[in-house]
């Protein structure tokens, strides 16, 4: 078990909020000499990104800082835990995308945070239609599909997507502004889960991955 985890988390948070990538990298490299890559991913990076996400929820940190923190951590984790690492391989197939429009920021934040936490997933980009998603999910045998939306109509159309996927073994997890402003909406459209921010997305994915064995 690593020591001084709190020290590393606090220092990493400070570096990320200042957008000081060099300091963050130096810190994580120092930590990587004292613990495994998985420990660093889960106990330092994920925990720190969660703290920053929580601070966004209470209004003390802005979305631009959440985004930049995720981008920096994603880059750094690739150095500590490369994409081809065996610990990343035994995961159900996962993908993320923006449903029906091109507002990509929320998706990018969640994508970075998940990768920074050691998960591997495919980024399907934006402007995804129902038919395109159904086709991709079936063809690629995706088991966990994370969908980000900004517009209310897009959120409502997820119901139709779920209907078309009723015989497919895939979990649809949703996030984005309409779901944040109406806490009941994700259930109404039949999603399998809703994450109000990237830390909730990580928690949901972690739980699902465990359940899927």
């Amino acid at each position: 078990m690593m020591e001084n985890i709190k020290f590393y988390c606090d220092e990493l948070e400070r570096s990320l909020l200042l957008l000081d990538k060099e300091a963050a990298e130096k810190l994580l490299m120092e930590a990587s000499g004292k613990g495994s890559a998985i420990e660093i991913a889960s106990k330092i990076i994920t925990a720190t990104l969660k703290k920053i996400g929580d601070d966004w929820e209470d209004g003390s940190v802005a979305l631009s800082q959440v985004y930049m923190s995720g981008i920096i951590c994603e880059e750094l984790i690739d150095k500590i835990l490369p994409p081809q690492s065996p610990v990343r391989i035994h995961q159900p197939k996962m993908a993320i995308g923006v449903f029906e429009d091109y507002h990509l920021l929320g998706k990018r934040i969640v994508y970075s945070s998940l990768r920074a936490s050691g998960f591997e997933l495919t980024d399907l980009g934006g402007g995804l239609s129902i038919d395109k998603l159904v086709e991709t999910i079936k063809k690629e045998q995706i088991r966990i599909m994370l969908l980000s939306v900004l517009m209310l109509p897009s959120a409502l159309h997820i119901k139709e997507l779920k209907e078309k996927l009723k015989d497919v073994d895939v979990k649809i997890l949703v996030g984005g502004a309409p779901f944040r402003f109406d806490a009941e909406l994700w259930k109404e459209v039949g999603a399998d889960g809703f994450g109000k921010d990237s830390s909730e997305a990580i928690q949901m994915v972690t739980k699902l991955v465990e359940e899927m064995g």
Partner: protein
Amino acid sequence: MERVLTTLGHNEPDRVPQFLLLTMHGAKELGMSIKDYFSKGENVVEGQLRLQKKYRNDCFYAFFYAPLEIEAFGGEVIYSEDGPPNTGLPFIQNIEKILELEPPKISESKMLHKVLFAIEKLKKKAKSEIPIIGVAMSPFSLPIMQMGFEKYLEIMHYRKDLFDHLMHVNMEFCVEWSNAQLAAGATAICYFDPVSSSTIIPRELYLETGFRIAQQTLSRLNGPTATHFASGNCLPIADLVPQTGTAVVGISSMEDLSKLKKAYKNKLTLLGNLNGIEMRRWTTEEATENVRKVIEIAAPGGGFILSDNHGEIPFQVSDEVLMAVSEAVHTHGVYEETVG
């Protein structure tokens, strides 16, 4: 008009002014698709006239849809059957092209002309009795639709040369577009600036960017403005927003209304803060109760206009709920009888 001016002066008018910021509902009134509705200025004039009368609204809203300005820049707009037109792929894909960007000429944009036509017609109907609200995207927030958030944050943090040029282009356009609407008869401009909200950028960055840009832009407009953060938070910058020269601030349902009232008291008029997304599934009773609660907190002393929290009520909100909101304002918003 007097009702609105009184509350803007931080005094109590006869009743809380009600700005139901309805856009797509005009298409519903006219029995046409959203795309057809916005294809002609005449449709929007007729839609706004009907909506104002139906809901006894205290303003006309000359807003068509957000990517209208992107069309003027040559970008793509995607229409939807049940929602507002949206931007397609951002037209700036290579950030180096920013240096070649110039402000579009209003005289060359058919869509912008439709808006100006609608404002002129509404002005003839409204005379000076009902305010007409024009809309402009802030130079600082327009890049989200021009280039996407990621590239924008990249130039904001690492490419000051590109950022400064883009702000210059957007500011020239915003000033010209806003003043054209004011000249056509708009009473005020709603300056949409969601990126400046504390939900999106930290206060320190706002001070260096959105705040400074708003000060420079608003000082060049020939009329009053309302700054709208489109559901974004604005409590952490409550001391700064009034210094931009705006008169009104659009507030979010996510922030504590009592704290907002206190923070902006006698500085800016609050515009809000009904949750438009939730409104879709409110019962008429819930609508009434939510309006009553908001009025109870925000109306005393004036400086308050009842509205939604985003600057556009979703197409899915029913006429029954809108009618209940209006009824509640006309019942619970009368100052001498119920407020305070």
